[in-house]
C-alpha cells in the first residue's frame, strides 16, 4: 500500500507499505524507522522553526514540531529501541541575492531536523541532501530503505 505524505504532514505505517512524499526542494523529508518493530514513518518539513512564527494552524510543517510528532508516533507503534533516521531534500532551488551561504531555507531545515533528532536521541544514519534540485522520497517500511528519485539526475537508495 502507498501512503502519500503532503507538505507539512507526517504518516507512520507498517509493512507491507511505502510512505511517499513528492517534490522535496528546500523542504526536508525525514524518516524515522524502527528495524526491530518494523514500523516507520516520514514527515515532510517545510520550515525550520515554529519559533519564527507567532501563529500557525498546522504545527507539522515545522522541523521542531514535526520531528517530535513523528518520533512519538513511531515510538507508540514499535517502542523506543533501535530508532534510526534518514534525511532527504534541503536543496536550494533559487540563488537569492540577499541570502548568505548557509542561511537558505533548505540548509536551515536540515540543521533544525538534525537538532530535533539529536534531542530525542535518534541517530541519523543516512542523508541525501543539498544541491539545487528536487527529490521524491519513498520509504519501504519492510526494510527502512529510502528510494530517492530526481528529475534528470537518476535515483538511488539510502
Amino acid at each position, binding site marked *: 500500500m502507498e501512503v502519500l505524505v503532503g507538505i507539512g504532514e507526517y504518516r507512520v505505517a507498517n509493512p507491507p507499505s511505502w510512505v511517499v512524499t513528492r517534490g522535496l526542494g528546500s523542504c526536508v523529508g525525514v524518516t524515522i524507522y524502527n528495524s526491530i518493530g518494523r514500523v516507520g514513518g516520514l514527515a515532510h518539513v*517545510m520550515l525550520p522553526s515554529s519559533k519564527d512564527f507567532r501563529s500557525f494552524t498546522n504545527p507539522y510543517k515545522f522541523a521542531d514540531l514535526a520531528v517530535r510528532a513523528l518520533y512519538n508516533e513511531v515510538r507508540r507503534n514499535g517502542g523506543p529501541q533501535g530508532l534510526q533516521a534518514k534525511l532527504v531534500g534541503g536543496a536550494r532551488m533559487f540563488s*537569492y*541575492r540577499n541570502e548568505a551561504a548557509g542561511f537558505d531555507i533548505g540548509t536551515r531545515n536540515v540543521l533544525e531536523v538534525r537538532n530535533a533528532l539529536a534531542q530525542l536521541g535518534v541517530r541519523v544514519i543516512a542523508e541525501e541532501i543539498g544541491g539545487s534540485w528536487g527529490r521524491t522520497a519513498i520509504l519501504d517500511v519492510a526494510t527502512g530503505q529510502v528510494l530517492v528519485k530526481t*528529475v534528470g539526475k537518476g535515483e538511488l537508495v539510502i
Partner: protein
Amino acid sequence: MRDEKRDRYEQRVTELAIAELDALNEIGNIGSGNAATALSQLLGARVQMSLPRTAVCTLEEACAALSHDGGVGIGVEVEFSGGLAGTMMLTLTEDSALELVSQFAMLSGKGLEDSMVHSALMEVGNIISCSFVTALSDFLSAQGKPSPPMFVHDYFEAFVCNALAHGADGVDEVLVFTTELKVAEKALAGELVFMPSPETYMGILKGLQVTEGVEEDV
C-alpha cells in the same frame, strides 16, 4: 518585520471581508492586464489572462495548490524589494513552456535543455513580472526593485515551496494572486503567481481604503 506590524497583518488577513477580496481581485486584474499586454507585444500573438483568483491561505495550502499534482515544470521567479516587495513567479508545465517558446520563430525546434530557450523563458517571466508590478506601482504609489530573474526546471512542489518559504517572513497566512494564461487561443498549463510581502500586503489594503473612501464620496 516588527511584531506589532505582524499582529496587525495577521488580524487583517483573517478578517478579510468579501468586499476586500473583490477589491484585491481588482488589483490583481490591473497587474495581469498590463502583464498580458506586455507578453502579447513580446510574442506578437494574442494573449489572454484570466481574472486573477485571490486566495488567502497557509503556506502549505498555497504550495499544494500550485504543485500540479507532483508534476514537473519550469519556474521563473523575480523577487521585488523596497516599498512594493514580494515574489512573482511564472510556472508552466514542460509542454506549455515549449508551446510558449514555439511562438518565437528563432527558437523553433529547440528543446527545454537549450540555453537560449532558458533565456527566453526567463525573459518572458521577467517581462510579465515587471509589467505586473509596474501597474501595481502606479496604483499604489510604491516602488519595487526587481532581482534578475531566476530559472528552475524541476518538480513544481520543490521550487514553489522554496519560493513561498523564502518569502514567508514569519507569517503563515499568505495572500496569493494566480492567473491563467492563454496564448494564441491556446490555454497554457501553469500560473502567474504574485505573493506580496506581509508589509506590502498591508500597504495594498491601505491603498484600497483610500480608493473606497473616494468612491463613497461620489
